């Protein structure tokens, strides 16, 4: 928000100039907007009356600009009153709850029950038309909007940790409301303010148009349109000017509101990058580059590199990743956040977001390169030969479909069997993954299930078509330890039973030790070490692996912190990416390091591999 974007600047500039004009009108030396000149009525553009004269011979330009002054005065005054009253009521209602909440919210609800123009007419009936009536009526009309916005925002803000922290510090309530709550609810209120300004002008001009708003001869855009309608045949242009002024003004307020909303909304701030370039060569000539296929491998990935276009330029969250997993094997990919482990597998599944694309490497699965398959071919594989278990079972099920139907859908996407047959299979799957009372649970909605139960549904969905490769992306991170133990057991059972390969992504070294045969340690987008779990954990070769193991508290060893933090992808170091945090770095570590074979199926990316000793090997030495 530091820089004013053009989207924000244009409407803001327009509104600013309108306000300036409205304020400066009396000093512009314009003809009196209410002085009639009947002999010259309806004359066209002429010097002295740049836009002509109306049905009473009044100067149109002057009336137009004075009209802007009246309209904006009414709109700003009424909106400001509504904003102050509404914010105060909403703030008190949301913070103190109880009686204040009841009064402010119910009051707002009652007003919101009436269509705005009708309520306005009701007020006019009681008070008679005029500027004061308009201001009062518009304030009443728009206060509930502010009450609702402020109330909703306060409710979501009051439970934030930083507000609790202020309470815990012993701050007084006025201090918390003014210094902590109000600044944090200001943006949506500002959006509401600009929205309401536009709406107020619409209602004001509409009422004036009906002859129930501003009282003639006071100039107003609505009144001008009303007057010009009568003389439409003789002077159509008279109609055009106020219509144009009104529409442009409202457009400016609407655009300002949209731009403000986008500027404040964190979701839209994360800019989507460019679309991926179609891999034309690969579509035309698949198999142009023959692959070295490892026989007996379920999936063989070589040199996978993924690029993402961001505002700060192209980043490589995954750089030269290679691994092989055989049928029935379990590979654990372990790393901290930002290591690129999730991007690696989403890339393999062809589920990367639009801004990301694999730019190099190959991933041979059942004889074909996944990275060079067409979207249709990939879709036929996904959910069938290649299935995925997501991290968050809460959000990964569609809340508006029954869980049984979602499993049935997965079956029917790949096999032409009848719906009842698919449902019978879903029932068997539910039973297999240990869902109690499976017949009833098929017809349950996702929100009726616990986290562990939903993860079982996700697993049932993933194994529905007997995949050869199962990719589990942190499947137990969102679960409690006793649930985690259940799910890990289930996955191990299923793998033994079906003989499918399993890629298991996790940040927990303990889970790796539980479930995996081989482990691949990732750091800042690269593989730093891989090999059989037992030997890697007993004698890590890479300083990062050793440091990770030492950072986990276990038994009587105190956890040893690793200094610093994982760098963001646009700040990856040139040479060894771990060197800035490594206690063993030497000058050669400034150079990029290749992944080197180290015997017994071990590979490591470290200039000092071999001359450093960690883990049990170090103690034995």
């Amino acid at each position: 928000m530091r820089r004013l974007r053009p989207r924000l600047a244009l409407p803001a500039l327009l509104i600013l100039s309108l306000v300036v004009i409205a304020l400066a009108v009396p000093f512009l030396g314009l003809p009196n907007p209410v002085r009639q000149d009947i002999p010259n009525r309806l004359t066209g553009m002429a010097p002295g009356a740049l836009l002509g004269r109306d049905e009473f011979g009044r100067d149109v330009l002057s009336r137009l600009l004075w009209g802007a002054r009246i309209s904006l005065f009414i709109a700003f005054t009424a909106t400001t009153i509504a904003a102050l009253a509404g914010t105060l009521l909403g703030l008190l209602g949301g913070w103190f709850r109880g009686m204040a909440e009841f009064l402010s919210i119910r009051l707002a609800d009652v007003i919101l029950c009436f269509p705005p123009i009708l309520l306005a007419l009701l007020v006019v009936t009681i008070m008679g038309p005029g500027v004061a009536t308009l201001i009062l009526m518009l304030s009443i009309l728009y206060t509930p909007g502010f009450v609702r916005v402020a109330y909703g925002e306060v409710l979501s803000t009051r439970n934030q940790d930083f507000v609790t922290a202020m309470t815990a510090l012993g701050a007084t309530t006025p201090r918390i409301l003014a210094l902590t709550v109000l600044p944090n609810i200001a943006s949506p209120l500002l959006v509401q303010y600009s929205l309401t300004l536009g709406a107020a002008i619409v209602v004001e001009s509409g009422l004036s148009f009906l002859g129930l708003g501003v009282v003639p001869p006071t100039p107003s855009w609505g009144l001008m349109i009303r007057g010009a309608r009568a003389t439409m045949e003789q002077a159509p242009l008279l109609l055009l000017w106020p219509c144009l002024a009104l529409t442009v003004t409202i457009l400016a307020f609407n655009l300002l509101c949209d731009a403000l909303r986008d500027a404040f909304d964190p979701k839209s701030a994360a800019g989507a990058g460019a679309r991926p370039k179609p891999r034309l060569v690969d579509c035309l000539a698949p198999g142009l580059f023959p692959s070295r296929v490892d026989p007996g491998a379920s999936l063989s990935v070589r040199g996978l590199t993924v690029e993402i276009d961001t505002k700060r330029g192209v980043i490589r969250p995954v750089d030269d990743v290679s691994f092989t997993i055989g049928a029935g094997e379990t590979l654990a990919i372990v790393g901290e956040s930002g290591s690129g482990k999730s991007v690696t597998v989403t890339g393999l599944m062809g589920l990367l977001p639009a801004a990301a694309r694999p730019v190099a490497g190959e991933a041979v699965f059942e004889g074909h390169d996944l990275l060079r398959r067409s979207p249709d071919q990939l879709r036929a594989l996904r959910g069938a030969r290649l299935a995925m278990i997501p991290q968050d079972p809460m959000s990964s099920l569609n809340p508006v479909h029954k869980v049984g139907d979602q499993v049935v859908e997965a079956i029917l996407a790949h096999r032409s069997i009848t719906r009842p047959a698919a449902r019978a299979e879903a029932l068997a799957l539910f039973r297999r993954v240990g869902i109690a009372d499976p017949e009833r649970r098929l017809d349950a909605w996702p929100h009726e299930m616990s986290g562990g139960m939903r993860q079982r549904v996700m697993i049932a969905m993933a194994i529905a078509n007997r995949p050869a490769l199962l990719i589990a992306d942190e499947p137990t991170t969102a679960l409690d330890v006793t649930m985690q133990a259940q799910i890990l057991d289930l996955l191990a059972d299923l793998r033994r039973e079906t003989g499918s390969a399993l890629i298991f992504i996790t940040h927990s070294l303990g889970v790796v030790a539980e479930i995996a045969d081989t482990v691949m340690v990732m750091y800042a987008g690269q593989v730093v070490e891989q090999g059989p779990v037992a030997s890697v954990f007993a004698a890590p070769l890479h300083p990062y692996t050793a440091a990770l193991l030492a950072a986990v508290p276990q038994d009587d060893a105190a956890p040893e912190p690793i200094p610093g933090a994982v760098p963001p992808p646009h700040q990856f170091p040139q040479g060894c990416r771990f060197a800035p945090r490594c206690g063993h770095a030497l000058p050669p570590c400034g150079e990029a390091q290749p992944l080197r074979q180290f015997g017994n199926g071990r590979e490591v990316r470290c200039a000092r591999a071999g001359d450093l000793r960690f883990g049990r090997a170090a103690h034995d030495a």
Partner: protein
Amino acid sequence: MALLMAVPVFVLGTLLILLLAQTLKLMPAGGFVPFWRDPGQHLLLLSLPALVIGKGLVAIVFRMTRASVLDILPRDHVRTARAKGLAEGRVLRAHVVRNAFGPVLTVLGLHMGALLGGTVLVEYVFNWPGLSTPLIRAVEGRDYPMVVGIVLTVSGLFLLINLVVDLLYAALDPRIRAG
């Protein structure tokens, strides 16, 4: 779309009359003929006001649907649907549009209020003998009981519409039913 949102209904109505009736002489400038006397003319006369009232709704529904779909698209369950290997069309139908519908419906219901209010203006512009003429006359004449009567009738209609919307929403989203 932004322009369509911005132009007030009575301005659009007036401009349309200026263009279609006054300048091009394609249509009558407004008025009313009972349906049974001349169905064609009735519908012709109805078409412009209906179009003008509908414009606001089109703009609102367009914006809301777009925002709602953009909100749903990056969600995890959409990725699950893709991971199942569903065709893109099915992903959009069953897992995006279906979920995006609720918010659109709610906003639609709430905007019915502005729509019903806008009708007063549009009827006036097109000389359509609906509730607006007696209403405006009653306001001008400070006929308080009459105004209250009409306002309450229309507000009742508005509340009824919103009740229907809420019930529809509950039918669409099982979470609402539970809460």
